[in-house]
């Protein structure tokens, strides 16, 4: 993906974690995986549903939807399909990358066991077009296993990883979002119920089934048992992936360079927050959603020490506008307009109408597309106004106080 302010990583720093990312030194091989977890037991649908409900596993792709509900919907239909989405369209995210290269068999165990419980004939794997390390790691992992997988290659595009876009790809059409008249768990791949989740969700399911609900819930909080993966990335340097226990403090996981800096929480479609807000955040999908700063896919992008968040937001907005599939009118027209206002704000001195215009364009594009790309871009843009009102006013007057005193550097 050219033009991304946060480049797609070729290498990722993965920190040892308490659950999914534990025992990394043993390597990603199947033998080490089985030595650690034992053989994959077989579950029927009722047992699987019971385990998922007792541990409240939610999807880790961003929406945070309860996995058991999705499973139940898929189980009601005929001939369900199981899909592992490894395409990770967001350049700033690297957690699926980390799992694929460090613990691929957790992902594959989760999907395989669920497919067996659903009596699904095949497991589909959607691989990223722009992350060769992930493709290599997954190919190596499936070569060690006896099950059959159907592989698909997603295009290098921000919106290509979106659920409907993935189903389009699987059906042999352009890898772009379309209007979903029904959730894919009811009608997805060739009209069949499709249980599509991202790699981390499947790895969580895999670990839950391998260690059992009690051991799974030994970490985290009663409401949110277990852990979740976080990616810390920026315009420079290697992204870092950490596994954080639910209920822990986000600031305890942050890399040193993030301290004292504002950050974009939830990825390019996320919310800008000040350092004070960031430092007070708990690791919790549920609580952060209520607070209006959803964790999304677990991406945190701290602004660098020489970076103004408004400048970074403008660059991200320009990138996101270019990543529109250019199919839906409001997104096609609205995102470039939004990016232009943010650019004028970043450059300084656009006049106070810029603020009204950002709100207006945000309202205009939200909810008016086949996917959440316009909604997410609008959220990112509008959160600037909420998080940094003083800085926005300074930029309106042609000054930037975030980087250095004085006029905005051109």
């Amino acid at each position, binding site marked *: 993906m050219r033009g991304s302010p946060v480049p797609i990583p070729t290498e990722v720093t993965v920190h040892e974690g308490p659950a999914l990312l534990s025992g990394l030194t043993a390597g990603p091989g199947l033998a080490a995986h089985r030595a650690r977890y034992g053989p994959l037991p077989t579950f029927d649908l009722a047992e699987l549903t019971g385990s998922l409900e007792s541990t409240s596993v939610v999807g880790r792709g961003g929406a945070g939807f309860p996995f058991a509900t999705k499973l139940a919907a898929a189980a009601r239909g005929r001939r369900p399909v199981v899909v592992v989405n490894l395409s990770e369209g967001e350049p700033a995210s690297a957690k699926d990358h980390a799992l694929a290269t460090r613990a691929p068999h957790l992902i594959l165990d989760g999907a395989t066991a669920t497919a067996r419980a659903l009596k699904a004939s095949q497991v589909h794997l959607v691989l990223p077009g722009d992350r060769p390390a992930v493709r290599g790691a997954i190919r190596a992992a499936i070569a060690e296993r006896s099950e059959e997988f159907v592989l698909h290659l997603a295009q290098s595009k921000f919106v290509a990883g979106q659920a409907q876009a993935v189903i389009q790809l699987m059906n042999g059409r352009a890898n772009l979002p379309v*209007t979903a008249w029904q959730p894919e768990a009811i009608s997805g791949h060739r009209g069949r119920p499709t249980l599509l989740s991202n790699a981390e969700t499947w790895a969580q399911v895999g670990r839950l089934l391998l260690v059992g609900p009690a051991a799974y819930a030994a970490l985290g909080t009663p409401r949110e048992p277990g852990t979740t993966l976080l990616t810390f990335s920026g315009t420079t340097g290697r992204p870092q992936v950490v596994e954080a226990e639910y209920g822990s403090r986000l600031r305890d996981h942050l890399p040193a360079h993030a301290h004292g800096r504002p950050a974009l929480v939830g990825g390019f479609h996320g919310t800008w927050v000040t350092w004070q807000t960031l430092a007070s955040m708990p690791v919790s999908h549920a609580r952060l959603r209520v607070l209006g700063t959803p964790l999304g896919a677990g991406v945190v992008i701290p602004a660098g020490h020489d970076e103004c968040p408004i400048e970074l937001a403008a660059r991200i907005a320009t990138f996101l506008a270019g990543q529109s*599939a250019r*199919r839906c*009118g*409001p997104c096609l*027209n609205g995102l470039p307009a939004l990016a232009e206002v943010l650019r004028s704000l970043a450059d300084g001195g656009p006049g106070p109408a810029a603020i009204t215009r950002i709100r207006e364009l945000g309202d*205009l594009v939200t909810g*008016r597309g*086949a996917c959440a790309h316009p909604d997410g871009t609008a959220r990112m843009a509008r959160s600037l106004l909420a998080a940094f009102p003083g800085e926005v006013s300074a930029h309106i007057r042609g000054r930037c106080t975030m980087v250095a005193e004085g006029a905005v550097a051109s």
Partner: protein
Amino acid sequence: MSSRLRVDWPRCAGRGLCHELLPDHVSLDEWGYPVVTGDLTDADLQDARDAVSGCPEMALRIVSVPAR
């Protein structure tokens, strides 16, 4: 349950026929694409069906939404 118009955004080309037929429920944004507001009343339903069948891109549907 009540009825609402829903736009199939990738198909919509902003031709504005729905706005002509249902000005109370469909306004147009600055680029000419429909902005759908409000639930359909029984009186609107026939116009709404005409808009659905008349849409040149077949980009409009009437969907049921749970009553609020």
